Structure formats: structure tokens, C-alpha cells
């Protein structure tokens, strides 16, 4: 009788210990880094919950960051480095940073998030966030970010999506500039050489006595009329593309910034 009672008690105790596990957020899932202290603890909790949902939905690494000191970096580099150090190079994820030092907020994408969040989509999300930053509702700003990301994740990677790296842009600009320079030089050569050649003279119009010109026939006779038609090819709007750049750690990032 006693033995059964002890066993029951022990089982009850074990079960209650299980139930007593705290429903706190585990340390590794902490995704809000409010270094500037602009969020209340309730806001942090709420945001962490939203982030958890988003993480489940996308499988991405996520972070919301505020800072008063960008450590001498520009906002974009700070966000990139923060992500790389926290989650590693070229993993899938996105971070939103409010930088009070440079007075800019930025979204930095990595991995497949670059392709989901194209330049135009990021611009859209940032524009939606702008009014919240203006009125210093930082929690709402971050919440807006989360819903924006979610919305575009659901929309999927747009058709015709492509990446345009900063290095590519720089190289293309150089090539175009070289071509323009070469063409300019060529035109200059042709113009100068042309001025040092003989030109054919104008015709004898100077010697035409205009007053004496007499028209013997001036007829314009209608022949025929016809109509043709051509179908216009509709051009589909492509995804717009994502500009990418390389962070100091060597990771490829997309994203965009707005000042506030």
C-alpha cells in the first residue's frame, strides 16, 4: 500500500515538474536587441512572439535591433555585420535596424531572403514604416516590418527575379563610360578631319530668279487609301530585381535604408 502511494506521489511530482517548466522564451530564440532601450518589456515580449511566428512561417533567422552607437560604421554595414556575427555568412534571414546614431533605419537580407525581398518590396516596407518612426512609435514600426516581411514571404519570389550586385554595377558603369569616351573621341576626330577637307559646294539656287519661276503643272491626285494594324506586344513587368553588395565579412546582402 505504501509502495503504491510512494510511486503515485513520485509520478505526480515528476508530472508537476514537467508542467512547472517555465513558458519563457528560450535564450537562443531571443531576437529583439533593444540596445537603445526604446521598447518597454511588454513590447519586447509581444515582438518576440510575432518574430517566433514569422520564424516558424519562413524558417529564417530574424533580428530587430536598435543602437545609439554605430561604432563608426554606416547603418548598412552595422546591420550586415550584426547579422553575419549572429547568424553566420549567407544564411537565410533578415534583420531590421533602427540606428539612432546615423538616424537611419535599414533592412538587411541574407540568403534566400534577398530574393523574396526585392528592392521595390523593401522600399514598400520602409515607406510603410516611415510614419511610425516619425512619431517615434518604434514598437509599431517593428511590428509593421514583421507583417511586411510575412506578406512578401507569402507572395513568393517574383517571376523574373534577378540580382544585381554592386560590383557588377561598378564594372558596367566603367565599361559604359569607356565606350562613351571612345565614341566621343571618334566623333571629335571625324569632325576635325572633316573641317580640313574640301566640301561640295551648294547648288545653283543662289542664281535662281525666284520671281521668274513659273509653275506649269501643280497637281496632287488622290490614288488610294488603306489601313493596316499591328498587335501590340504587352510587356510583362519583371520582379524588379534585388541589388546586392558584399559585407565586410564576405556575405552577400540585399536591403535598403531610409533616413528618419
Amino acid at each position, binding site marked *: 500500500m505504501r509502495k503504491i502511494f510512494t510511486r503515485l506521489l513520485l509520478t505526480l511530482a515528476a508530472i508537476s515538474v514537467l508542467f512547472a517548466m517555465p513558458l519563457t522564451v528560450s535564450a537562443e530564440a531571443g531576437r529583439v536587441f533593444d540596445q537603445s532601450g526604446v521598447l518597454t518589456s511588454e513590447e519586447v515580449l509581444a515582438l518576440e512572439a510575432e518574430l517566433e511566428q514569422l520564424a516558424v512561417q519562413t524558417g529564417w533567422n530574424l533580428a530587430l535591433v536598435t543602437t545609439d552607437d554605430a561604432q563608426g560604421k554606416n547603418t548598412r554595414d552595422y546591420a550586415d555585420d550584426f547579422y553575419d556575427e549572429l547568424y553566420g555568412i549567407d544564411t537565410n534571414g533578415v534583420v531590421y535596424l533602427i540606428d539612432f546614431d546615423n538616424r537611419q533605419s535599414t533592412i538587411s537580407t541574407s540568403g534566400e531572403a534577398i530574393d523574396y525581398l526585392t528592392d521595390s518590396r523593401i522600399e514598400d516596407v520602409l515607406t510603410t514604416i516611415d510614419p511610425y518612426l516619425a512619431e517615434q512609435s518604434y514598437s509599431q514600426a517593428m511590428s509593421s516590418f514583421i507583417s511586411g516581411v510575412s506578406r512578401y514571404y507569402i507572395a513568393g519570389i517574383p517571376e523574373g527575379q534577378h540580382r544585381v550586385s554592386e560590383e557588377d554595377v561598378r564594372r558596367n558603369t566603367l565599361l559604359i563610360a569607356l565606350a562613351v569616351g571612345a565614341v*566621343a573621341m571618334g566623333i571629335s576626330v571625324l569632325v576635325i578631319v572633316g573641317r580640313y577637307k574640301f566640301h561640295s559646294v551648294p547648288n545653283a539656287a543662289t542664281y535662281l530668279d525666284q520671281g521668274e519661276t513659273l509653275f*506649269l503643272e501643280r497637281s496632287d491626285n488622290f490614288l488610294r487609301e488603306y489601313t493596316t494594324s499591328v498587335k501590340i506586344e504587352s510587356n510583362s513587368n519583371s520582379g524588379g530585381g534585388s541589388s546586392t553588395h558584399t559585407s565586410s565579412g564576405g556575405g552577400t546582402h540585399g536591403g535598403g535604408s531610409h533616413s528618419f
Partner: protein
Amino acid sequence: MNMPTIQYKCPSCGGSLEFDPAKQNFSCEFCLSRFTEDELKAAFPQNEQHPLDKEDEPAASADSEDFTGHTSLYSCPNCGAEIMSEDTTAATFCYYCHGPVILSGRLSGKYRPSRVIPFKHNKESAVESFKKWRAKKWFVPDDFKSGAQLEKITGVYLPFWLADCDVDAAMTAIGKHIRTWTSGDYRYTHTREYEVRRRAELSFRGIPADASSKTDDRLMEAIEPFDYNELRDFSMSYLSGFLAEKFDVEKEDVFPRIRSRADKACEQALRESIVGYTSVHAVEPTTQYDKVDWRYMLLPVWLLIYKHREKNYFFAMNGQTGKMVGIPPLSIPKMLIASGIIGVAAFLITFLGGLLL
């Protein structure tokens, strides 16, 4: 047999008289007296010949013993020296005494011009104009910029045929009036076609053509036009102090060039009368020259031949209007440097501009 020659001698001192373009009268180089044209005509009536005089040109056989086929002998009325001149030379300077000599025998009969435009720009003016024109050319070699060959610039009365033509020109064309619009997914083009006919009588007055085989036709066309309002009745006195050439190209031989210029002008005039269409497709007109009247005259030109690195460069200035034409030598290094700078500038602007975007 010696050729008849004329020299206008100053009634005051016997020195030679030359036409002064700046003052438009005749000045004596020694006593500096000046005479108007009328005074000269009064003093030398025997020098003006009738246009109907038969040609005094000596028969070719008289000079066939000369070593070249194009020279004949004359004697200078001033110093008596026997000098050579080319067949076409009508006025020149004596090689020995530098006095102006007019070979009147070469300006009579069919070689007597009906009119002449006297020089309006004298040698100083020609040299000045040339210097100014040269200064504007940035890409000439440095040695061209400083050349002293300018003194060799020569004032020549050159022979020209002038043609007055009445032309019957006819042209047909297709004129299209096109309208486009878009409706739904389609772009529509509506075309109305017209047959256009134009025919006109056009009159040209005084189309000039270079009548000397020694000068470049294109160069002479380039210094046109001359102002025919300043044509004077021909008098050999105007030639005094300048060179002059008589024609050696017959009017039949210059007509093709004149005709081609007039044809183009007819095409332009007819084409300009076709208005109101979106597009016109015209064929070259047919032209018929009903009447061509010819005049032969001497017109003033300042000529300079410039030799640079074994190539000859020709310059001409209209002796009446001052219009300058010529092709200067081109310094390739200067041109390449300038073009290179422009190329580099374009490159920098595009590159920096592109990066900023």
C-alpha cells in the same frame, strides 16, 4: 613676230599706272598721282578696242620653234626686254623691270570679256584676311602658323563663263498622309497616297563656271558668289597691276558642270513646292534647257599656293567680297591630343555620373 602689248603710263611722270582696289582708281607708283577711270579713258582712247576686232593672236606656227608648246614672245613696252609668257596669260609683270604689262592681243576678238569686276581687296587686305583665317584654325602645324609665304599671294583676274538658263523641269512623286492611333491591343496605321506632279519653268541668271584649266573648279565654286551689281564694262586698265588669264576651256565644255548645278537647284525648288505630306518619295526631275545665253568675263581672285611637307595647299579669296576658301594642312598630333582630351572628359563624366546614381 611680237605681240601687241599695252602699258598705262602716268601722264605726269611716265611711270606705270596700277589699279588701286582700295581707292578704286589708278595710282602712279612714282609720282603718286591718282586718276579716275574716265580720266584714263580720255588719256588713252587708243587702248580701248572694239569688241568686233578680229583676233590678233599670231598663228601657232610662228612660235612652233619654241621648246614648249605654250609660250610666246613679247617685249616689254617699258624696258624692251623680250620675255616669255604662257599662252593664256593676258596680263602680267615684266620679269626684268617689274612694270605691269597687258597683252592686249590676248584680249581681243572672242577673247575680249564683255564685263569685269575690278578688285576691291588689295594685297594688304588679302594678307590680313588670310592671317585672320589662319588664326582660327586650331589644328594646323606650328610651322604653318608662322609662314612668311603670304607675300607670294597673287591677285589674278580669272576667266569665267556665265550662263543664263531657262529650264523646263518636271517631277513626279508619291506623297503619303499617314495617321496612327491605338485601340485596345492594336496599333492602326491609315495611309492616303497621292500622285504628285510638278512642272515649272525656272530661270537662272549668271551661273559661273571656271573657264581656265589651270585653276581648280571646286575652289572657284567655293568663293562664289560674286556681286554682279558691280560689274563694269571691260577696260584693260583694270588689269594694270594684276595678273590676268584668258579662257582655255570652251563654254560647251563647262556646260555639263553648270547643268548639274542647275539640275540640283531645280530639284530643290520643285521638292519645296510639295507640302502637307507626312512622307514624300520623289524621283529626280527631268530637265530641258530651252535657252542658254553666255557671257564671258574676268573676275578678281587672290590666289596662294602653300607648300607644306611636299604637298601643295591652295587658297583663294574672292577679290571682290573677301570670302576665303582653302584647305590648310592638318597637324595629326594636335588633332589626336584634342580628341583624346575630349574622350577622357566624356569618360570621366559618364563614370562619375554613373557611380553617383
